[in-house]
Every structure is written in structure tokens, then in C-alpha cells.
């Protein structure tokens, strides 16, 4: 590839790419994110390429495999443009028909179309799917147009024009000002103003400056950063180059979770392509600005999502946080001024520079600007990645985009903000998505996990789950976090196993307060949130466990028993064959029974039973 040695040469390449793409009459887009790969998108993609070649259509049909579109549950997805005809759950066997009918003749194949679970209507075009229409997909929407390992796709979408604008017509000071005015806040959870962070780094004294992309997305239930890095890595790279220009950095790092192998590879490929075009390296676009980026694989420690721990890890040390009386913008990586932003934050930077701070600030609420991506998961009809304008209510997200509860159950809570966040009940569903509003309600925006829970979830169990997670992930440096979280877990375990007492509830609150004021980093400070928020909104469930030794959701194993209803049981033997603990006895002639001592309440038997004769008591 010829290097881009000037801004004019970037624009020339953009025209060239647009010209090449315009040759194609039809574009077939296939989602190739991690989730779609798990659903088998790769055989579909191979079949599509083969079929297009076999039919001699490769001159007019462009087949593109992109990153995640967000609608993971419906994968593998195929979209045919123009028209945006969308097919869901496609198999390789469907491909010849798609090529013959839709690509050749423009006919829609009804049986592959999406059926909206709310209205039960078939939807043909992508932009008519309710899941998408209620979103504002400024960042995620791009994924669908870009093959992540083809820099030209990104350039065709206007990529690197923000960089060109910054290098060509703006001073570093003006870039910082623009980001400040936009009101962009850190998307990783803290919500710290990005422009302010950049200014502090710029003003700090040091021998060198660094920019870091935090892609150590560790909150369970989150995957927006992975999808952005996998699907549109150049948007993050462009954001980082602009940030480096603004603060005066020469080196940048993308610290990415090892559990995200596709993101590691795609980020690496994107960096090499950018280097080959001289968008990274020395004398970027012939402007004399030098900057380069390296990908670093994380070691799989949740605490490394914390800025000081991440930097320690980058230095080849154990990832323990340090006190932040001196901030990392002054003394970060190698003791030098460092800007660390989350993936989604970096991805927002190019469009702010391109369209201006006013454009960005015109979206969202008074205090939170722009859009936010959420991973909507759990017990809701439509799960996947969604992006909404700040200020959208939880109810709109869960019921309008998510389609409401599954299997005729009733939604009772949503967990936002991961292990640092909290559980909000339905009475709080009119809260807007806004950093301050969620914080005031006892939860937090976090990095954007949103797990919807219905009446089959037990809130004591949820609190226990997060405590077990945090106890496991505490780095062990501060005693209140290391021992306190463990003690909280012991108490909640007591309650979930029927040994709880009422005075333990006061102890939980007391101890929570100590942990949150006496821990060093955000992991410890926010660790009690899952307990405090469930105690605040679902105290009756705790009381039910303590006073009546009852788990209404049937989750807490020590408080439930499995029994076989002999009037329903047809003695088929499936439960006996499936029980891994050999806890069920019986034969065709005698009635079946479950031995409580051997039974672990795993309910594998209940899944196997076609008569639904195994009941939870």
C-alpha cells in the first residue's frame, strides 16, 4: 500500500475507495462478532462467498463480514443492501436461496425474516426492527458498515478525517478545548470529564507522556468495549492519535483482556494497517507528528480495570492499585503524565472532532452528554448491545427495546453497573440513564452492563453472587476489602442457607459503610453496593429468608427441596438416568423418590422430565 504522506493523499485514497465500492450493485453484510461466531456465522460466510462466486456474481456483489451489530440473540445475521433486508438465524443451507431469490431477484424470503416478539409481526428491513428504531446508534451503527480488518472500509466511512482535521487546522490546545466543551465523560464507569483529564495531563510536567486505552473490560455482563474493539478498531486508534496529539504523547497502549482473543487480533491487525499507511508511526500524514500504539494482553485480573493497577500491570508488576493522592494524569505509567480512557470514550473522540463539540453536547441530558452503549442481557426478550441517548429511561430500554419479560414472567429488577453497581426495582424504572441520576438511586452507570431479572431470580442470591465475585477479585492489599467483603459474603451465605438472624442486617449495613470508606480503590469502595441496594429495595426478600426460611424464587438451595409428584410421574426413568448424583430411586412398579441427602438441587432431573412432575418446594 502506498503511504499517505499528506492530508491530500488521505482524501485521494478516500475517493478511490468510494469509487471501488460504488462498482458493487449489492452488498451482503454478515455479522462476525464473537457471539455470531458462537452461533455459527463462519460457515454461513464461507457458503455465501462460495455461492456468489459459483453464480458468477463476484463483480457486482460485495460480501463483507463485520463486527457485532448488537442483535446477538438473532445471529447469524445477514443483511442485503440496498434495502437493508435482514435475515436472522441463517444457516449455510439457506445461502443458495438467498442468492437466487434476494440477491438476483430482490425477493424477500419471509421464513428468514425477523419476527418481532412483541407484535408477532414479520419485519423485512433492518431499519424497521423495533429493537433498532428506538436506539441512537452513533458508535455501534458503524460496525455494520466496516470489515474490521479492512482499513479502507473505515476510510470510506470518513475515517481518519477527524485526525486530519486536528493535525491540519487545530492546535493541541484547541483539541483539548473541543473535548472539554463537548461534555464527554469517561465511559468506563467513573464518568470523569474527559477534557479535564486531558488538560491536567497536558499541564503536568514530565519527560514523556502516554495515552492508554483501557480494554480490560472485566465487569461480568459487559461486552460493549469488546464489540467496539473487535468491530471498529480504527475508531479507537484514531481517537487515541487525536488524544496523543492533544496531550503531547508519543506512545500509546491498548490493554486488552486476554479472554477477548478476537479483539486482540483485530486491534493488532488494525495497528499494522495504520502503520503501513503512515497513520501511525513517524511523521503521521506528513505533518511531523510521531505516535505509535502497542497492544498488551491483560493477565485476567479484574482489579486491572482500575487505572493505577492497570499501569502497574503494564510495568510488568502485580496489578495492585496505589493511593491516588497524586493522580495518574500527573504520575502514571512509568511515573509520567498519562491519560487513560476507556474504549468507548476513545471511540467517541473522532466524531466530536469531526462534527464539533456543539453537535455532541446537543445530545443527552443537562449533566450527561451523548449516547451510551449498554449490554442488555438477562431475562428479557431481546438481548444484545444497545446504544441510546443519555436521558432515555430504564423502562424504555427494558420494555421498548428489550421487549419486556420472557416466558410470561414478571420483571422485578435490573442490575446496572456490574459488581460496583446495584439492583434497581421496577419502581425506579422511570429513572433516566444519566451518571448522576443512577448514582443517586444507589446504583451507577458503570461501564454499561444491564442485567434484567424476573421473579425467577432471588435478590439475596444476586447479592451473594457479586460478593463471591468481589472476594475472589479483591487484590488483597487493603484489609477492609480483603476481609470485609469475605465477611459480608459469610453473612449473606448464612441468610441464604437459613441461618440468618435479623441483627445481621444491621451488621451488613455497618460493615458495608466501613468497607466503602476505608478501601483504597473503587473496587473496595463500591463493593458493598450490591448488598446495600438489594437491602434497600428488596428487604422483604431478606426477611423472608431469615424469618420464614423461604426462598420465593426457588434459587437458594438450602431452602428448597425437590419432590416428585406421583400423580404426574409416568415412571419413564429419565430423571434417574440424568441425575449425576444418583439421588433418585424407583422402578416401573414402585413410585419414584428423591433422596434429600444425596440431592444437590441441581434440577437436571426437572429439565429432563417431560411430565413436569419434579417440583420445587
Amino acid at each position: 500500500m502506498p503511504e499517505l504522506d499528506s492530508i491530500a493523499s488521505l482524501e485521494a485514497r478516500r475517493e478511490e475507495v468510494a469509487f471501488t465500492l460504488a462498482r458493487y450493485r449489492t452488498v451482503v453484510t454478515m455479522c462476525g462478532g464473537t457471539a455470531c461466531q458462537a452461533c455459527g456465522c463462519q460457515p454461513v460466510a464461507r457458503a455465501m462467498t462460495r455461492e456468489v462466486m459459483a453464480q458468477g456474481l463476484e463483480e457486482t456483489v460485495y460480501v463483507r463480514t463485520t463486527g457485532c451489530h448488537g442483535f446477538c440473540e438473532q445471529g447469524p445475521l445477514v443483511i442485503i443492501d440496498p434495502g437493508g433486508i435482514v435475515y436472522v438465524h441463517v444457516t449455510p443451507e439457506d445461502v443458495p436461496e438467498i442468492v437466487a431469490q434476494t440477491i438476483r431477484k430482490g425477493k424477500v424470503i419471509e421464513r428468514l425474516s425477523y419476527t418481532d416478539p412483541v407484535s408477532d409481526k414479520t419485519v423485512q428491513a433492518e431499519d424497521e426492527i423495533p429493537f433498532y428504531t428506538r436506539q441512537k446508534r452513533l458508535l455501534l451503527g458503524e460496525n455494520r458498515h466496516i470489515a474490521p480488518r479492512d482499513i479502507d472500509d473505515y476510510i470510506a466511512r470518513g475515517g481518519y478525517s477527524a485526525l486530519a482535521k486536528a493535525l491540519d487546522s487545530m492546535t493541541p490546545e484547541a483539541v483539548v478545548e473541543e473535548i472539554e466543551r463537548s461534555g464527554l465523560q469517561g465511559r468506563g464507569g467513573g464518568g470523569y470529564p474527559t477534557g479535564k483529564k486531558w488538560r491536567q495531563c497536558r499541564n503536568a510536567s514530565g519527560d514523556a507522556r502516554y495515552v492508554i486505552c483501557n480494554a480490560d473490560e472485566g465487569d461480568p455482563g459487559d461486552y460493549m468495549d469488546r464489540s467496539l474493539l473487535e468491530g471498529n478498531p480504527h475508531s479507537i486508534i484514531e481517537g487515541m492519535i487525536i488524544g496523543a496529539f492533544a496531550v503531547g504523547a508519543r506512545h500509546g497502549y491498548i490493554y486488552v483482556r486476554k479472554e477477548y482473543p478476537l479483539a486482540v487480533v483485530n486491534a493488532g491487525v488494525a495497528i499494522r494497517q495504520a502503520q503501513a499507511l503512515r497513520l501511525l508511526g513517524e511523521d503521521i500524514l506528513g505533518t511531523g507528528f510521531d505516535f505509535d500504539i502497542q497492544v498488551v494482553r491483560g493477565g485476567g485480573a479484574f482489579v486491572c480495570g482500575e487505572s493505577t493497577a492497570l499501569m502497574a500491570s503494564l510495568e510488568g508488576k502485580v496489578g495492585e492499585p496505589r493511593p491516588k493522592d497524586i493522580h495518574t494524569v500527573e504520575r502514571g505509567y512509568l511515573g509520567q503524565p498519562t491519560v487513560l480512557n476507556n474504549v468507548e470514550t476513545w471511540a467517541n473522540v473522532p466524531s466530536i472532532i469531526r462534527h464539533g463539540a456543539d453537535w455532541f453536547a446537543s445530545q443527552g441530558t443537562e449533566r450527561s452528554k451523548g449516547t451510551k452503549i449498554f449490554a442488555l442481557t438477562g431475562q428479557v426478550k431481546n438481548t444484545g448491545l444497545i446504544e441510546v441517548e443519555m436521558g432515555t429511561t430504564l423502562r424504555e430500554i427494558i420494555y421498548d427495546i428489550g421487549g419486556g419479560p420472557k416466558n410470561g414472567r414478571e420483571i422485578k429488577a435490573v442490575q446496572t453497573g456490574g459488581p460496583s453497581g446495584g439492583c434497581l426495582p421496577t419502581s425506579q424504572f422511570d429513572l433516566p440513564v444519566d451518571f448522576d441520576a443512577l448514582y443517586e438511586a444507589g446504583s451507577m452507570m458503570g461501564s454499561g452492563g444491564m442485567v434484567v431479572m424476573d421473579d425467577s431470580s432471588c435478590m439475596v442470591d444476586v447479592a451473594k453472587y457479586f460478593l463471591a465475585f468481589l472476594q475472589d477479585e479483591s487484590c488483597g492489599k487493603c484489609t477492609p476489602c480483603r476481609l470485609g467483603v469475605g465477611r459480608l459474603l459469610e453473612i449473606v451465605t448464612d441468610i441464604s442457607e437459613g441461618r440468618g438472624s435479623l441483627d445481621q442486617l444491621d451488621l451488613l449495613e455497618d460493615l458495608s459503610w466501613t468497607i466503602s470508606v476505608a478501601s483504597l480503590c473503587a473496587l473496595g469502595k463500591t463493593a458493598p453496593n450490591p448488598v446495600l441496594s438489594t437491602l434497600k429495595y428488596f428487604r422483604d426478600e431478606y426477611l423472608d429468608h431469615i424469618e420464614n426460611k423461604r426462598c420465593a424464587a426457588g434459587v437458594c438451595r438450602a431452602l428448597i427441596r425437590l419432590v416428585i409428584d406421583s400423580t404426574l410421574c409416568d415412571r419413564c426413568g429419565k430423571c434417574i438416568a440424568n441425575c449425576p448424583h444418583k439421588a433418585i430411586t424407583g422402578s416401573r412398579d414402585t413410585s419414584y423418590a428423591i433422596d434429600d441427602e444425596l440431592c444437590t438441587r441441581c434440577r437436571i432431573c426437572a429439565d429432563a422430565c417431560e411430565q413436569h412432575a419434579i417440583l420445587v418446594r
Partner: protein
Amino acid sequence: MDLSRLEEILDSKGSETFAIMEVLQDVQEAYRYISEEAIVRISERLDVPVIEVFRLANFYKAFSLTPRGRHLITVCAGTACHVQGAPRLLDTVLALLNTKPGETTADGAFTVETVNCLGACALAPVVVIDGKYYDHMTPGKVRALLEDIRFEDELAEDEDEEEVEAEANA
């Protein structure tokens, strides 16, 4: 133990501050664990105290101090998977293989691990076996998968034996 791969990894290491992490990642991938010999050798070559190398290998979840099995089964324990039945999946796997999380079966065939989220939440609950993702898992499905792997392993062993016999006969 063949340490030639370790030497190659050490030879090709970069000069960055995080080079030791990269070395450990590569050693883990190549050997499926960080052995005592590897820790000592890394310490010598990188001029870092043995205790520091051990500390890193012990702190980060990506590294294992004991050999992992031929098959790695990862049960996702993220929030979305948890509320959709991951604990039952884990129970099933552990009961069927008679092992504990993070440990390897006595025959060296399987290691069972949990991970705190794979970011495939829309497909919950998820189990990864030898790098392949399996979505919307149930205890029944996971049991069938394990039986398939065992069956294939036995077939492969039989073939190996046949080959050895054929070679002996020739």
C-alpha cells in the same frame, strides 16, 4: 521437560516494561502452565528475582502453576449466565468429571475453570470447550458434549495403538 520453546520465547522477547507479562502469556500458551523450571529460567534470563516471577504467575488468573488438562472446559460465571443457570452447568460438569474448579482430572484429560464473563451474554449460559463457544447450554447438552469428547479421545487412543501395532508388525 523440553525447555527449547521457553528459550525461543525468551529470545524473542521485547524490551518493553511489560515484556515479562508477554513471556508468561506465551509460556502459558506453549506449556499450558508455568512450571518451576520455567519460573527459575525466566528469573535468570530477565534478571528478576524468582519470587517476583512467582508472584506474577500466582497473581494473574491467566497463569496456572499446575499443568492444565488436554481439554479445557470454561464455564462462564458472568451475571447473565449466572441468572440463567450457570451454577447448575458447573455442578453438572464437576459431578460428571469428579473434579473441582481450577483443577485437572486425575487422568489429565480435563481442566474445569470458571471465567467471570466472556462477553457473549446474549447467548447465556455459555460454556467454552477447547476454544469453541457453546451457547444456551443446559446440563443435558453439556453432558452430551462431554460424552462426545470422551468417545473421540477413546477412538484416537485406539487408532494410536493400532498404529503402534502396525509399526511393530512392519
